[in-house]
């Protein structure tokens, strides 16, 4: 049962990204640098924190597309565009602006992702913690978070 029927459009977008990620994984290396990924885990967005991790739930999924240092992330909880800052260790930080979806009211907001890539070999598994702040209708202030495990395709990784 879909607990969030109003989120069907983001879920369709996620399915498109998931299909694209799988297709690019088996495609030859690209000439331009980009990353595409999919992650899932636990989210807390005004629907009763804390929520247990559920990797099968489409509500917990997040897809992202990264071109150069710009990262666009889609999820049932957010639509964010951010700048990627990386460290040599594989850690990264993405401050982002966009739209925050929250159980008590959605609106514009900001998010910061702290992640770590490990064992990259074409595909990069990663763990990511993300906190969100958004402003909704009637002076509602959304304060959410997400913790996800994911995998992404890096066009420049060997």
């Amino acid at each position: 049962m879909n607990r969030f029927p109003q989120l069907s459009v983001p879920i369709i977008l996620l399915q498109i990204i998931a299909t694209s990620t799988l297709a690019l994984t088996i495609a030859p290396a690209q000439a331009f640098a980009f990353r595409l990924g999919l992650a899932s885990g636990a989210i807390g967005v005004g629907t009763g924190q804390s929520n247990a991790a559920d990797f099968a739930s489409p509500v917990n999924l997040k897809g992202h597309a990264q071109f150069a240092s710009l990262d666009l992330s889609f999820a049932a909880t957010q639509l964010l565009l951010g700048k990627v800052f990386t460290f040599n260790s594989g850690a990264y930080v993405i401050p982002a602006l966009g739209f925050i979806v929250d159980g008590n009211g959605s609106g514009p907001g900001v998010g910061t992702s702290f992640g770590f890539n490990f064992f990259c070999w074409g595909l990069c598994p990663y763990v990511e913690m993300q906190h969100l702040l958004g402003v909704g209708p009637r002076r509602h202030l959304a304060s959410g978070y997400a913790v996800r495990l994911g995998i992404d395709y890096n066009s420049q990784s060997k």
Partner: protein
Amino acid sequence: MSQPARASASRFALAKFYLAARKLPQIVVPCICSLFSIFFTARPACAFEFGTGGGFISQGDDRILPAVAGWLQFNSNILISGAAVGEKNSDFSQQTALLHLSYSSTLENSKSLRANLGVGEFINRTRILKFDSDGNSSSKISNATGLALGLHWTPALNNHLRFRAAWDALYIPPGISVLYLTFGHLQSVTAGLGWEF
């Protein structure tokens, strides 16, 4: 003192020691992490910055509490920061504090944008102001340790004065026995002025 009374006192002391010992890891673990961070990442040349400001602590949707904040940064990389709030209603009073000990690093070529990773402590004291039949009021102190992550913007205003806007989050795991990716979550957004020397 009679023999049974001495035995009872001894058992009471033992129980008190046991209760105190159970809370020991909550104090010892952050201390060990602190010492590790300081001794293994500190550089010989010391530079200090301290500052204070204000902002809010968010304990969830629409649970925003105004807070005072302070920080101490040394060796450019070790940051001790905190935010505290107190509220008093007709039936209860509550004090909440978030303390973070973090390794702070600039983001790529940016001179003022910093990311922090460390340990954090959540301390909360709640006192119910209603009195029971014995005339006592109840109070409870709870604390929890978690992972601290933060994003700070720290532009220099002149040689010694530095502005700091901080967005910190504390992720508190529910316990070692639960391996879900489930966390308690608190955020603080603060801003203030710091003096470095």
